[in-house]
């Protein structure tokens, strides 16, 4: 009995530790400035205001940053999914000479291991030469490349779980290879596809370094960069920052909740099945 209480207590403690900081930020976004700086810290006893949200998204350009983040995330995820899934299918089902399929998969995965800064510097120079700095296109392209290894690796795992029998039956029944892929295999990996898509969306949405390096102007800035830009400069308007931060969090939390069944698997690159 005592053990049960101890464990529950521990659980609660962990939850509090995880969520309190976030809660605090949300309260800042809802407090008037005087309450923000109050001592003792006001955890619950304040009158909320939405002025910061208004200022962030209507007066200032955070609305535009939000839109840019959304567009870049969705388009790059879609591209990565299509390109990556086809490659994953080929690498799972077809045996290439000299174990190429295995080597390619590992090589693709290894590109995920690069520190971002290593490719950020040359990409900046490349984009500058191509005059693609400060464009959404450059971000979309880079994020697609960024997400591709993950898509290939995850989808390989999901494809491997579909028994080969089913595709063979489809072939004998008269379907073409690609027809079998679309009609028989894809419906079966649909949950995995969705989970992978969500992961890519989350990663793209949260991404900071490449966006920071490749976009400097309002037109192309993503939400994280927009938020950061204000923090590192002169006067810090915490209310506005927190409001933007709170909004930036929302899609993530929604997605994470929806996909939490596959979460552990995705985060550990398929090594551990949650």
């Amino acid at each position, binding site marked *: 009995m005592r053990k049960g209480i101890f*464990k529950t207590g*521990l*659980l609660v403690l962990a*939850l509090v530790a*995880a*969520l309190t*900081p*976030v809660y605090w*930020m949300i309260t800042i976004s809802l407090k008037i400035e005087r309450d923000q700086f109050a*001592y*003792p*810290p006001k*955890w619950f006893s304040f009158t909320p205001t939405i002025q910061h949200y208004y200022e962030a998204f209507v007066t200032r350009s955070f609305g535009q940053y939000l839109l840019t983040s959304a567009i870049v995330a969705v388009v790059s995820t879609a591209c990565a999914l299509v*390109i990556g899934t*086809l*490659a994953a*299918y*080929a*690498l799972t*089902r*077809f*045996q*290439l000479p000299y174990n190429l399929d295995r080597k390619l998969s590992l090589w*693709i995965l290894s*590109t995920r*291991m*690069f*520190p*971002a*800064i*290593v*490719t950020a*510097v*040359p990409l*900046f120079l*490349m984009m500058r030469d191509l005059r693609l700095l400060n464009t959404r296109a450059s971000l979309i392209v880079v994020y697609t*490349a960024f997400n591709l290894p993950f898509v290939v690796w995850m989808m390989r795992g999901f494809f*491997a779980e579909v028994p080969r029998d089913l595709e063979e039956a489809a072939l004998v029944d008269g379907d073409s*290879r690609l027809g079998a892929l679309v009609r028989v295999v894809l419906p079966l990996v649909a949950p995995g596809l969705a989970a992978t898509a969500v992961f890519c969306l989350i990663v793209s949405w949260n991404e*900071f*370094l490449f966006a*920071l*390096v490749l976009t400097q102007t309002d037109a192309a800035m993503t*939400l*994280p*960069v927009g938020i950061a830009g204000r*923090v*590192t400069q002169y006067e810090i308007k915490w209310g506005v*920052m*927190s409001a933007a931060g709170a909004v*930036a969090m929302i899609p*993530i939390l929604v997605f*994470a909740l929806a996909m*939490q069944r596959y*979460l552990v698997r995705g*985060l*550990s690159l398929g*090594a*551990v099945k*949650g």
Partner: protein
Amino acid sequence: MPRSKRFFSALNRRELLLPYVLVAPALAVLLALSIYPLFYSIAISLQQETASGIVWTLAHFKRLATDNFFLTAMVHTFVYAVAALTCEFVLGLALALLLNQQMRGRAVFRASLLVPMMLPTVVVGIVWRLLLNPNFGAINGTLKQLGVNTESLTWTASPRLAFVAVIAVDVWQWTPFVFLVLLAGLQAIPQEPYEAALIDGSSRWQTFRHVTLPLLKPAILIVLLLRTMDLLRVFDQIFILTEGGPGFATELISLYIYRTAFRFSDFGYAAAMSFVLLALTNIVSLGYLRLLRDEKRNF
């Protein structure tokens, strides 16, 4: 049958090209945006612009050896990685072991624990800047309420405290990840070995050492590998939280490279440092992967 059951066997002449066609777009994208930049980077790391044009030189690499900033940044990164990894691993493992059981509301619990690691790193930075603000941050405020003298707790303004703070933030953000992966690993261990150990009369510590740990090894290795990779290349949170400050106190290698490239426009030198960082992460990951491979072979 001496061939893998996974693969398709029959490929007519026409179909032989199909796998290559399917893989080509992915390869093209990666070559253009991951591999080519690497070579570009290596190229500029070996070049220098002089009065008479561009020359090939090892000057940047030579500079590395004497650049105190670089060496300090590397030390910072190493200390940071080891400290954060240790805390995260110990905490995560302890939590996983203690909470390894069926519990009600697991989905809610898991989802809540996810929050720290799912947040955009920028938001994490903001959250903690707010908390750590010496004057109106909740941490100092709460400590003051409890009677602690917070005069000297100027978190982000004092070099040593800033370093600790930065590590603490990472631990806050990523311990849930370690916990979740290790928990999943624990729950994947079948009951039988435990039952056999019980019948054989082994103590709790013995069971832990000889049953739990070995079977948990793959999950542990993966978690350590992923966290190490992430810790070595950390950038975002530090950038927002302290910008590498105060002074140079929390300057980690990624930040130093960033600064060299984008504040001082010294791209060649930045590229040389990137190369070293890449080599380092490769060596580390290869080490882990080899350990993993040996693990898999034992099964």
